[in-house]
């Protein structure tokens, strides 16, 4: 008889023991998949929040008085090609979405009625893609040439379809199409006008200059800001980095905590389940000692016996792994929706771990049955079959 058929029949006959072993795989697999999926969801949530709230790191000239910086007093400038140098650097990976900005207070802008207002001008250099890091979606701060994006307070002073007109330092008047009227509630941007960097530099006569780089800090194990500072200053010692604290930090802490707990819980549960399985297989081998003895008496080799026990572990590991994957994904989806509001709909089964699941769990469960299987091959056939 085919050993596989024999294994299947035995598995079905000793249902309770098989179900308990299957249950241990399902528990281990479910917990692993659920924690992994939730951890991924948490990571996505963190990214999403960071993207929603904007770039969270500022890089500016060393020695800048932060009071001036935050109150939009004009601060020192540096060459805009610094952005490209950073983007080209192999060692610079703690920061993404590098956006060079020239941010200048413009105290005497005249609206169409001739009234003068103080506004803030932002010139955005095209977002730099880091050469040695995987490409990412742009965060959307690029402004097309010939257009401007105007804040809600500025927009109140410009008629619909009318262009934005500004006097340049060269005495010329510059006119830009209004590409976007931003909604209110964007803080400093409400009284600002965003340009393509080169055009603003021309208006202000500040060719090749910017006064800050905004960027998105990485999700770094050893601290975003410390890492970013170290890397930036290794390249440009005349720059420094500061961070806007954010709720992303809270999310990031949550994610780190989840990973920390996951790093403990997953091995703990898997090892516990493996030990239970090992004991169940040991018990199974003891119960089946006469059957195993008979198979050996009938000329089945130790390898066949070993194979039969390991194959049983493989089947249960595979079945439990698959069930656990779907159950774990469901658990993650069910609870994840409560926890991660922004990315709730994107919590889906992580198919990449499905393939790991169907390999890892059968292998682990075969390993847990390895010692009982070896003991089975060493059963004293003559003794066991002669016992009354």
């Amino acid at each position, binding site marked *: *008889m085919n050993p596989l058929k*024999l294994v299947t*029949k*035995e598995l*079905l*006959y*000793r249902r309770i023991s098989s179900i308990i072993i299957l249950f241990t795989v399902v528990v281990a697999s479910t917990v692993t998949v659920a924690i992994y999926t939730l951890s991924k969801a948490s990571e996505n949530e963190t990214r999403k929040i960071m993207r929603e709230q904007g770039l969270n790191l500022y890089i500016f000239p060393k020695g800048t008085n932060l009071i001036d910086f935050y109150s939009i007093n004009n601060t020192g400038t540096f060459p805009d090609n610094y952005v490209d140098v950073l983007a080209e650097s192999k060692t610079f990976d703690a920061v993404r979405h590098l956006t060079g900005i020239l941010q200048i207070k413009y105290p005497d802008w005249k609206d169409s009625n001739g009234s003068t207002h103080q506004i803030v001008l932002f010139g955005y250099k095209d977002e730099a893609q880091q050469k040695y890091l995987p490409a990412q979606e742009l965060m959307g701060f690029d402004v097309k040439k010939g257009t401007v994006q105007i804040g809600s307070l500025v927009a109140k002073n410009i008629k619909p379809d009318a262009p934005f007109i500004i006097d340049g330092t060269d005495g010329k008047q510059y006119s830009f199409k209004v590409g976007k009227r931003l909604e209110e509630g964007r803080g400093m941007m409400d009284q600002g006008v965003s340009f393509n960097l080169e055009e603003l530099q021309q208006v202000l006569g500040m060719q090749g200059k910017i006064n800050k780089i905004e960027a998105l800090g990485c999700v770094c194990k050893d601290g975003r800001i410390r890492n970013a500072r170290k890397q930036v200053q290794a390249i440009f010692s005349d720059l420094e980095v500061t961070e806007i604290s954010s709720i992303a930090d809270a999310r990031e802490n949550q994610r780190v905590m989840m990973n920390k707990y996951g790093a403990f819980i997953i091995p703990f549960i898997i090892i516990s389940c493996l030990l239970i399985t090992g004991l169940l297989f040991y018990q199974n081998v003891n119960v089946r000692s*006469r*059957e195993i*003895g*008979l198979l*050996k*008496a*009938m*000329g*089945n*080799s*130790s390898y066949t016996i070993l194979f039969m026990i390991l194959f049983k572990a493989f089947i249960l590991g595979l079945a439990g792994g698959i069930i656990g994957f779907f159950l774990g994904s469901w658990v993650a989806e069910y609870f994840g929706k409560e926890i991660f509001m922004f990315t709730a709909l994107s919590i889906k089964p992580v198919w990449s771990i499905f393939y790991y699941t169907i390999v890892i769990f059968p292998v682990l469960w075969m390993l847990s049955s390895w010692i009982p299987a070896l003991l089975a091959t060493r059963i004293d*056939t*003559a003794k066991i*079959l*002669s*016992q*009354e």
Partner: protein
Amino acid sequence: MIEIKNITKIYKKGTAEFTALENVSFNIEKGDYVAVTGASGAGKSTLLNTIGGLIHPDSGEILYNGSDIYKQASRHTDEYRKKHIGFMFQQFHLMPYLTVLDNIKLACYEKHQLDSVDHYLEKCSLTGLKNKYPSELSVGEKQRTAFIRAIISNPDILLADEPTGNLDPGNSSILLSLVEDFHQNGGTVVLVSHDPLTAKYANRKIVLERGKIG
């Protein structure tokens, strides 16, 4: 066919030693029906299992067609048991999760051996029970199933260890006549029993006394 030469087997437990077989020698020829009798602990089962390739003797040789079965690689010993030996035990040792038919098929290692299953089922009055599980059988039916399983692959030797030990006189008689039938058709039988009456069909009798041929 089988030469048993100066077989000695000593069991050790701590410092205590028990000599199960001591310099046992005899030959088994094709078509022999050898009954090995003796009191409990005389070494009958040890002898049978040694012939069957299950107990490695401490000294001596078991030669099957001229080669020592214990001086070969373990896969050859496995092969020897599979192709040349049929075992029957007092406890039947049927797989509880297999039907009568599947228990018998367990011993078939070649397809053509399945052809004679129905014939033996008929002969042993088990045709109507072939889809039953061991738990649904009487002890006599269980032992007859074990008998078919032992001979279905047409082994050179049937090694039976107290095959009637658990049977009533009626079932014992049926089983012994089946074994005799196997012998009459050219089979070689080595049957171990503490009951001298069981040996009535045997053409050779070996009496073991404390591990020695008496």
